[in-house]
Every structure is written in C-alpha cells, then in structure tokens.
C-alpha cells in the first residue's frame, strides 16, 4: 500500500515538476511595484511638455523625490535615462521644499503625509508634474496619483491641476488614465 502510494506520488510529483518547469521558463520578468511605477514615471516624463520652458532645452529633466524614498532606490534606476534627442533624466533626492521646487517631476513620498496637502498647495502653481501614491490620501491635490486596482497599477490625472501647472500631457497617456477635474465649488476627497 505504502509503496504504491509512494510510486504514484513520485509520478504525480514528476508531472507537476515538468509542468512547472515549463511555466517557469515561459515566465516573463517580474518587477516590484516601485519598478513598475518608475517605468510609468519614465513614460510620463517622455509624454509631458513643460509649456513654460524652452522646447529645445537640452538641460537634464530633473525628477525629484521628496521625503523618504519609498522605492528604496528603484527610482534611481532612471538616472541618465534618455527622454529626448538630447535630453536625459536626472534623479534627485530633495532635502527640502526649496530643492523640490527646482524639479520638473516630483514624487512626494507618503512619509510627508502630515504636511502633504500643504506641500502640494505650495507647489500647485509651479510647473511641476507632482506624483503621489493615492493611498496616502491627497487625491484632491497634485497631478498624478498611482492607484492599485486588484493586482494592476493604474493612475489618475487631475487635468485641471495639470493645466494650472502649465503642463501638456500627451493624449496617449491621458487615454490610459482615470481623469479627474477640480469640482466646481470645492475639492472632493
């Protein structure tokens, strides 16, 4: 009894192993959540025009991170990435608001949670593409918010805020986003 059991168990195990091996090799690369976000941010950088600046500028585009870097260094993988014919991305960990104001893209970390609304208000009229994780609870402010839906990453764009910041985000990206507008008569959380 035990022997035959063992045998059939071994067979079943071998079959599962074979199937699984196949699955492993068919598997594509997986990324951590912040690697996926970094991928999105790179695409945002490519798809956005800063209307206030010289369209032929070849200064690096500065992507700042304000607050403790939640990606634990993953965002820095974008350092030096090409975002145009003569333009690269420069990743900067901002020490304070003054440094943050010099960026074109700014990810504001959840560690700044308590003063996030104030920060975003401070930045709202500057030409900065502000990005946050929606779960830190500031959807009414800032421009882009990452939202996790089940196991996929989605993002919201507040088009009114983008207009105010004089940013033109390509329709290709807007098409994929959940669009929000400032509600007349106040902001909705």
């Amino acid at each position, binding site marked *: 009894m*035990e022997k035959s*059991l063992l045998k059939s*168990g071994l067979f079943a*195990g071998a079959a*599962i192993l074979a199937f*699984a*091996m196949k*699955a*492993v090799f*068919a*598997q594509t*690369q*997986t*990324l*951590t*959540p912040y*690697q*996926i976000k*970094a*991928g*999105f941010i*790179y*695409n945002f950088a490519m798809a956005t025009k800063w209307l206030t600046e010289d369209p032929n500028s070849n200064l690096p585009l500065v992507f700042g991170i304000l607050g403790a870097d939640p990606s*634990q260094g*993953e965002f820095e*993988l*974008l350092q030096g*990435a*090409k975002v145009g014919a003569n333009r690269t991305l420069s990743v900067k960990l901002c020490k304070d608001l003054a440094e943050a104001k010099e960026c074109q893209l700014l990810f504001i970390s959840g560690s700044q949670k*308590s003063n996030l609304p104030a920060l975003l208000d401070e930045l709202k009229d500057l030409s900065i593409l502000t990005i946050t994780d929606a779960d830190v609870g500031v959807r009414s402010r800032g421009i882009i918010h990452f939202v*996790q839906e089940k*196991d*996929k*990453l*989605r993002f919201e764009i507040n088009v009114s805020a983008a207009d105010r910041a004089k940013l033109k985000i390509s329709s*290709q*990206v807007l098409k*994929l986003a959940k669009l929000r507008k400032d509600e007349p008569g106040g902001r909705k959380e």
Partner: protein
Amino acid sequence: MGQLIHCIVSIALCAVTDFAVVTRTIAAEPPGRSGSATNQNSAGPLASTNRAPTRPDLTQFTMDQLMEMKVTSVSKKPEEFFNAPAALYVITSEEIRRSGARVLPEALRLSPGLNVAQIDASKWAISSRGFNERLANKLLVLIDGRSVYDPAFSGLYWETQDLLLEDIDRIEVIRGPGGTLWGANAVNGVINITTKSAKETQGLSMEAGGGNVYQGFQSVRYGGKLGPNAYYRVYEKYLNHGEFFDPAGNAADDWRMGRGGMRVDWELSESDVVTWQGDVFGGEVGAKQIMPLTRRPYAEITTGDAKVDGANLLSRWQHTFSEENTASLQVYYDHFNRDDLRYAETRDTFDLDYQHRFSPFSRNEIVYGLGYRYSKDLIEGEPATFRFDDPSRELSLGSAFLQDTITIVPERLQLTLGSKLEHNDFTGIETQPGTRLLWTPHERHAIWTSVARAVRTPSRVDDSLQAHLPYVNPVPPFIRSPPAAIGIGGNAKFESETLLAYELGYRVRPLDRLTFDLALFYNDYDKLRLGEFDFTNPANPPQISQEYAYLPLSIENLMKGETYGAELVAHWNPTDTWKLVASYSYLKVQLHVPPAGLFDPISPTATARSPRHQMQLHSLLDLGEQWQLDTGAYYVDRLPTLEVPSFVRLDFRVSWRPAKNWELSFVAQNVLDNHHPEFGASLDNFDLPTEVRRSVYAFVSRRF
C-alpha cells in the same frame, strides 16, 4: 573532529571575508510577539526584506506593457521570514482562505511539521514535535496577544478557539521552544495568531453556505470609520457542524457554535495607536465519553452536549518613540465557562503586559517585558470520580524577560541572548534562558542555531486532581481486566517538566521563486509526567473488594526522554499565478521509564501519539481573473499505540468570481475515502474517537 573544526573555521573565514557580495539584508529580528507586539507594521517583527538582485532597465516598457504588469510581490512570505533564527512557518490569510478551512484548528493543518489530528467532529489534538493529545500541554497559543492556554488542564479546547478566518492577518507557527520570550508552556511550539487591523477590514463582507459535514455556516463582518483616524469592525459567525462517522453507530459529536466581536483601532497621533477588541462566543459541543463508575459495570458510555461560552476584552496601546524605540502596554480580561459531561469549569483571567524595544547602541537591540496574570477558577465534577482538592483556586503569574540581539558582523552575524523569569504558584521561580545565532553568509543563505531551555509548569490536574480512570474491558485504551478503577492523585510536589532544546536551521533561496527551509532539532526532556502506583500513601489507600479494585496512582516527574527530527519546507512560485508549498517532517520520540516500579501505561505511549513521517503538498493556482483551483495533499504516518493507520488526505477547492464582489466556492475534503480515524481515544477527557468523513460544501461570499 579535527576535520569538523577545520570546516567550521573555513566557513567562518568565508563569512568574514565575504565583503565582495554587495547585498542589502535587513538584519532579522527575534521571533516576534506580534500579538502584543511593539510593531504595528503588518509584516510583524519577524519581517525582514531582501532585495531582488536584478536591476532591470525600466525604460524599456511601454505604457501598455506597464498597465498589464501584476503588482503581486511573489514569494513575499518566505522572503520576509527568511532571516528568522527559529523554525518558523507563517500561514498567510490567503493560504487560509484557499485551504477551505472553516474553523481555526483546521487552518493549522497548513503548517508543516505541526501535527493536527481530529479526535471527533468537535475535538482536535494539535501539537508540535511530539506529545500530541487533546490537551497537548507543551504548545502555547496566543490570539492577538491573549493566551488561550488553560492552566487547569494544561492545554486548550480548540473547538472554542475560533475567529472570523478572513480577518486573520497571519498565523505564525514556531516549532521549538519559545519560553525566552513567551514564557512557560511554550515548550514544543508557539502559535501566534494575529488579526488584521480594523483599517484593513473596512466594508461589508458576508458569507453563507453548507454541506454534509459543515451543515450550515454564515458570517457577516462590517468595518467602518469612527473618525478621521479611528476605524472599527464588528463581526458575527455561526457554524453548525454535523457528526463524523462512528463504527459503533451514534457518533453524537455534532456541534454548534456562534460568536461575535469587534475591534477598534484609533491612531491617536503619528506615534500612538490604541486598540480595543473583544469577542463573545457560545455553543454546544456534542461528545461521547466513557465515564468511570465505582460499581459494575465500572464504566458507561454517555453522550451529551458540553455547553461552552466565553468572552474577552483586550486593550493595547502602542507608542513609537522612534523607528527603533517602541513600547506597548496591553491589558485583557477573559472569561470562559465549560459545562462538560464530567465536570464544569469557569475561569476568569486578567492579564497585564508591558513591552519595550529599543537600540541603546547601534549594534544592540533590546527587548524587555513585564507581565502579571491573575486567574480564578471554579471546577466541579462528580465528587466520587472527579474533583479537585480546592474546587476554586486563584492563580497568579508574574514574569519579566530581557532579550538582546547583538549584531556581531553587520548583515552577516547576529547573536540573540535572553531569558525569561517567571513566578508561578506551583513551583515558584522558573528561568527560561535561550540563545540564538544567525549567520547570513549571503543574501540567499541563512543559517541559524539555537539552544534554549523551556518548562511546562504544573497544571491544576497535576497538582490536585482526584479522579478515577475507568479500567475495564473492552474499552480502549483501558483494556485490561480485572475490573478496577485507577485513581489519579494530584501531587502538590509535582515539578515543572523541563526541556533543553538544540536546533539548527538552514534556509536557501536558489532562485528568486524557490526557497527551501530546513530545521533539525534535538530535544532533551527531563521530569516528564508519569503516574506511579503508590499503595503506601495513607491519604489515598488502595481498596480491594471482591468485585472492585481501586488502585491509587500518583502523578510524578519520573520520565525522561528525547525527541529528534527534521522538517523541510519548500516554497516555489513557478509563475505569478501558481504557488506550491511542499513539506516533509520526521519525528522520533524516545521515552525512558525508571527500571523499577509500577507505572501508568498511558504516559509512555507518547512515543507514538505523533506521526513519525508527515508530508504535505499544496498547490494554489489562479486560472485567469475569475477562477481559482487549489489542492492540498497530506500524508500522515500511523499512530501505533492508538491503532490509527497511516492515511492520505486530499482536498480540493474551486472558486469562481462571476462578478465583482461575488465569489462562489466549492470545497471537497478527504476525497480519497469515506472515513478514516486521525487520532485515538483521548487521554484527557475520555472522549471516544470518531472518524473523519469525506466533506463536501459550497458557499457564496460577497464583499463590498
């Protein structure tokens, strides 16, 4: 020997010189007391993270590709607990949900190395590393920091310990001693159950279903907000469980249990969280027991329902001074009442616990704690056959522990030293020191070793029970004639059972998606409980008449023993949609009874009350967005002294989500045979075992 030393030295040299490998491994922390933990992080104090070494080019993906990527962090769990210097397995809420378990003890089957056996439909014997029985006395169980170990009977009534399973965040199962942090009776293992915070269980969730064994069950949970930083949930759960199979006919072990509870988590400030939680439960638990009689036929089989109810209320305040400096203060009250066929027990417990964790120097992390527990019981039985010297007794327990985790070589070598001092009313002060060493030569390898002492303190039973065991033909396990009753006499001089445990573990992650976890142990027990026939005690003399013999048995610390074994667990996530967990465990128990003397025949059967070999294979497979197919296979070796043959158990679960928020599940358990026994006659309560039946059930859940 020389070779061994050479080997160790060269390995150690490798570790010290291995600076070339650039890894970032957060140092592992000691096994956490997450229930009462100072850490409110959902990953718990045991968590540590390893970074994937691959550095992908993140600019290569298009928006469409990124939109399709899954954000599941695969093999999260084995990584989180990869560097724990203990034989630890974490049962996740997903594993529980997908196992088809309806009640807490069934969910524990998922832990490798643990032996979970159902005695009848409502009773479980659960133990780690041997000595299994209904009231397994060497396993400590905590639910959100509340101990549910009963100091009167030393063990716990699993049928009364339940939760809304979907609210469980995780179950940490530590095999091996945990006395240094958790205190007495964490001898062979600790089960630490942590529920999700109220914030994580917002919204409405409902479930209802039924089948042939789980005849009807339903639950409702609702979570909401009390204020900007305060969350609550309330829940209710009911189960009507049918009978198992009894070869003799009427099993009478059906049971019904209802419970409800609440939890509030209030974030007072960025650094203060206050939690209040409580539960109430009540039910009737069917039983078929053999009851001793002092007249012919000396024993009779009785069926009936035990009535159980209870309530608890817990409050915990966690304060964070800084990331490395946290404290928690916890207080709880617990009441339970059990009106069993043979006795009635009521207990009220009050417990206060303080813990503080801080790092006074960069290489030290110190945790210390102080605790006090008071409990009062009332236990009444049939005076002739089951009584305590004092029906009611107050017990107090004071404790203090200190543990220091020292980083010897950053990211490589870590030493944990600690001890708990406990004062109990039976044996006075008990010390439970322990030391653990963790070596992480590489981010994919972790080696740990531990030496620790643990004690099982006397219970009310050991101290002062006066009870008759039935001793008549032909009811197992008491199968010898002539008709006689054995009278157990508690012994006020009974001391703690002691353990000195040696452990060695190795974890390796050869691939990102594959982890192996091996634990080896050698346990050296002393002063184990063994009854000795004592015909000279004037307080409890033997009685012999023509048709009746009464043989007094005194509870003594006369047995020694060793156990050794190995547990191997493999986690493999072949794809993001498929998880496999396989495990094997081996256990050998050797017990030594003194060469001369007349002893009880039951205690030494512990050599074979836990299976020598156990194997498990779990497969969790997602088939698209809507379907899940999960399989669990178990092999459990025979229990010779209980006459339980080995068995293979096979479970399936299929679930379908036809629409958002809706899920239909179908579960079949024990599909391979109509019925089989998992355990034999219980030593503690004289419950007669029944056989686990093939179970089929379906249910619908809706979550908002």
